[in-house]
Every structure is written in C-alpha cells, then in structure tokens.
C-alpha cells in the first residue's frame, strides 16, 4: 500500500485523525502504515462494560492505559464472506475463507493524550467467542514492540 508513515510529523488536535492500516493473516495482525489526515472521526462507542464480548473493536489508550476512544467494527478480518444468494426471502449466504489474509484500516482521533492503539478480535476459528487483544501498537515516536503476535513499526529507533 502506498501510505507514508507520518507519525513523527503528525500534529495532533481537534479535526485530525490517524488512519492505521494493518495487514492480517488469520488472527495475527501487524501495522503496515499510518497516515495523518485532516478529518473528523465518528463518535466513540462506550468505553466501558464490554468485556467478554465477541466481535472486533479497537481502542485508543492514554499513557495510563485508559480508554480514550473505542469503535466496534463488523468483521474486518474476513474469515468468512457474505454473498448475495439471489433469493429475495433469504438474500444472503455465507462462505468460509481458507487461509484468511488481507488488510484493514481503522481511524482514530489524533488526540494529544493518545499513547497506543489496541485491536481486539474473536478467534478466527470461533467467531462467536470472546474477543481478545490481537495487536497493540504504540503511537509514541520511539514505538514499542508488542507481544501479541503483531508488531509495531518502530521509527527513530536504532
């Protein structure tokens, strides 16, 4: 993907957002790029009382690991696909994706207090079970390596 990693020069504040592009293979995800964009983001979903739920969501966290922003998404990691059936009464059918891989994008507000982004997803072979953290990336200039199967892109580190 032709995205520039612009974290170092990313000014933060109202009306600014970061678009993060992740690649995934199964439930392993890693950050490929991030781009600062002058745009508004959709409002946050509730930042509490969602433990042990199934599905997919991402969170923006501060240095004390408090959730600043959270959005749930519908299956950006495609382990199965929806297809039109052509039947007006039951208009869809679903089909498994063997060896799921691809990319997904998330959009977070470029808040001054933002420290990291965390992505949670249900296991690719058990979609209706509780989600767990699959990747965490640091938004600080030096970056941190995560320990959940993904990795951050480190900038300015030797």
């Amino acid at each position, binding site marked *: 993907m032709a995205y520039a990693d612009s974290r170092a020069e990313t000014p933060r504040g109202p009306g600014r957002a970061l678009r993060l592009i992740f690649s995934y293979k199964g439930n392993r995800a890693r950050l490929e790029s991030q781009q600062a*964009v002058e*745009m*508004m983001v959709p*409002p946050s979903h509730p930042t509490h009382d969602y433990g042990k739920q*199934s599905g997919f969501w991402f969170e923006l966290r501060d240095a004390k690991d408090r959730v600043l*922003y959270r959005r749930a998404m519908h299956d950006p990691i*495609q382990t199965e696909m929806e297809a039109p059936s052509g039947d007006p009464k039951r208009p869809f059918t679903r089909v498994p994706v063997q060896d799921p891989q691809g990319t997904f*994008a998330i959009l977070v507000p470029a808040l001054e207090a933002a420290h990291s982004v965390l992505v949670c997803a249900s296991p690719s072979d058990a979609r*209706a079970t509780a989600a767990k953290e699959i990747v965490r990336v640091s938004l600080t200039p030096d970056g941190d390596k995560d320990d959940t199967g993904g990795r951050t892109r480190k900038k300015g580190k030797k």
Partner: protein
Amino acid sequence: MGTSDGTVIGTTKIAGSGPAAARWNLVLLSDGYRASEMAQYATDADNFVAHLFTTPPFSDNAFFGARYSDAINVWRVDVSSTDSGADDPVTCGGTGASPATYFDASFCNRGIKRLLLVNNTTATNVANAQVPQWHMIMAMVNTPIYGGGGGAVATFSMAPGANEIGVHEMGHTAFGLADEYEYWAGCGVDTNRNNHPAVEPVEPNVTIDSNRATIKWGSLIDAATPMPTTSNPNCANCDSQPSPVPAATVGAFEGAHYYHCDAFRPEYDCKMRALNHDFCAVCRGVIRSTLWPFVPKRRIPEWDEGIWDRIFEFDWVSDPVPWDVFRLLEVLRRSRGRSQPALRDELSELLTRIDQMDVGQLRTTLLRVKASMARLDAASKMIEAKIAEGLSAGPGA
C-alpha cells in the same frame, strides 16, 4: 489485468455541502465502464445516491432542517476501464467473459456465483489518493448480472435491486451493524447453527439477552411488547412464523447473527436481515448517532458553522452534553409547529406508558431523566458563561 487497463480520470463531489474535513465522506469508484460509458456511470451514481438518501434514517430530519444525508459528502471517482463488465467464470455457470477492467471486478469468488469483488488494495489506493478523508469506499460495477460483496470495499452491480446490497454492506462497514438473519449458508442447509454460543456480540443490533430490564435496546421496547417477542419452536431450523406484533415493533425476535436460537434481533424485519426493508429502529439509531457530528450546523441563518465549536469548545468525540442540548433544541423546534391536540395526545401516550411501568423501570427512567437534567443544567451554565465572556460573537447569539 488491473491498473494498466484503465485510467483514473478525476473526482467530482456529487452530494454534500461541506469540506471533506468536516463531513462523512463516501467514495464511489467505477469499474467496468469504458471511457465512452462515463456518462452512464454518472447516472448510475446519481441513482444510487438518490436511493441511499431516501432510505431512513438518511432521509430523516437531524437539526434545524438539515437531514442526516446532509452529513455526507459523496465523491464520484471516475475510473475508466478498457472493457465493459466484470469477469464471469464458467465454473459458476457464467459466460466466461473476462473483460480488462481497472479494479479487476469478478463474480464467482469463493465459488459463489453472485459474490462480486474488486481488488481492495487498488480501490483503497485510489480512494486514498483522490479523497484522503474517506470513511467508506464502494465500487460500482458495470454489469447487469445481480451481485455484490462486502468487506473494506463494498461492491455491487448495476442489476435491478443490487443497490440494496450496497446499502446493506454500508450498514456493516460504515456503521458496524451485524447481520440479523438466522442462518449461515442457508435455511435447511446449516446443521451447526442451532444455538448461539453464550457470548454477547459487540454489535449493537444483535444480542443473546432477551431480558426486558437488561437488553441493550431496552429503552426502545414498549412495556406492552412481550419478551422475547418470538421464540423459535425448532432450533434445528429457521423460524418461519409470521410476526405476532405489528410491523416496526421493537422487541426481541429469536433468530439472528447466523443462529436459529439463543440470539435475538430488535425487529421482525430489517435491512440487516433482508433487503428491501427499512433499517430497524436500533440500526437507524446507530446510523444517526454515527453521522450526527457531521451534520452541518450552517442552516441557522445568522450563525456561521464554527460558532458551535467556539461556544461550546466541546469534544465531539466524547462529550455527551452538546448532544443533549441539540436534541432539546430539536424537540422545541418540532413542538412549535404542532397543534395543541397533537402535543396533548403525545403527552397522554407518554403518561400512559409511564403508568404501565413497574417500580423498578420507573426508578431507572427517573434516574435517566435526572442525569439528563443534570447534564442540561451544566450545559446551560456553560452556555451562559460563554455568552458572558463574549465568545458568542455571532449576531444570533
């Protein structure tokens, strides 16, 4: 085949009134249209937007005459292809056509005849270059064969009715809505979709909880509606019973999220269950709340758009106070134009509903009202303080 089989001609904003930085941006891409067919693509894009914007809640009033559709900028990206159409492999019973198109649109993905997909990476790169502020990307494929697909880039063909696939997929990708249908491969086909696992889905429009007091859309359920509203008598199959309640009744209808039992949807029908239905009330609410920050405030004649930010200095992302203020203002605006009997009937209905509540529900409702009033009180004081500071420089302040 791919980007060598066409050209990105340019981008035109075909709907919307504000800058990309202040609106929710939908990007439409063309595939399988030759350069000589760009006028047809423009017509097709206009038709899709007209369909979308007449679909509730996009057609609903949002704020001082602005509709939720006014929150959206639609950008038509004109991309020509060498050939018309999309790949139609013979393995799925197709014609074997294999036109050279920019985004490589093809049917028969994963062996499913009508699963129409494009190259997502190419589509994302084009959208990113043309409209960096995109929130949703859709590819319109110039073929009369019915089909489409979801994911990061939603795809639909130009067959009659296929634009409904686009709107359904938008429900997933843009608004995080779940599928409300109760099957996976199909009714009578599935053998492992009897009972939903006992884990709550994160999506707002499906649940495993049919308890009136705790269900996540409980505030929309009338006290007279039975809970659960329907129960599937045979969990080995899809439930074929008709709705026992009038259309648009919100409750808990068993059969959702790809399972016959132990998962519930808010209404009997919804666009997230079957096409050519309205979105249910829960889905409409989710779409409205997502778009609300993007609704233009410019329609108050004497005020400029930025005044809201200057007065409130709020954070749209996390501050609920201005939302309540705007809702109150909208209620007041609507009340002004209505007859006294109509308002009296509405109040009477409200009082009847309160009268039917048990003590626990009433206590919960009163606590919510009290919390809302506290927030409104805080907002009023904040507004007064700002006005006193002279920050509300607009003549209408």
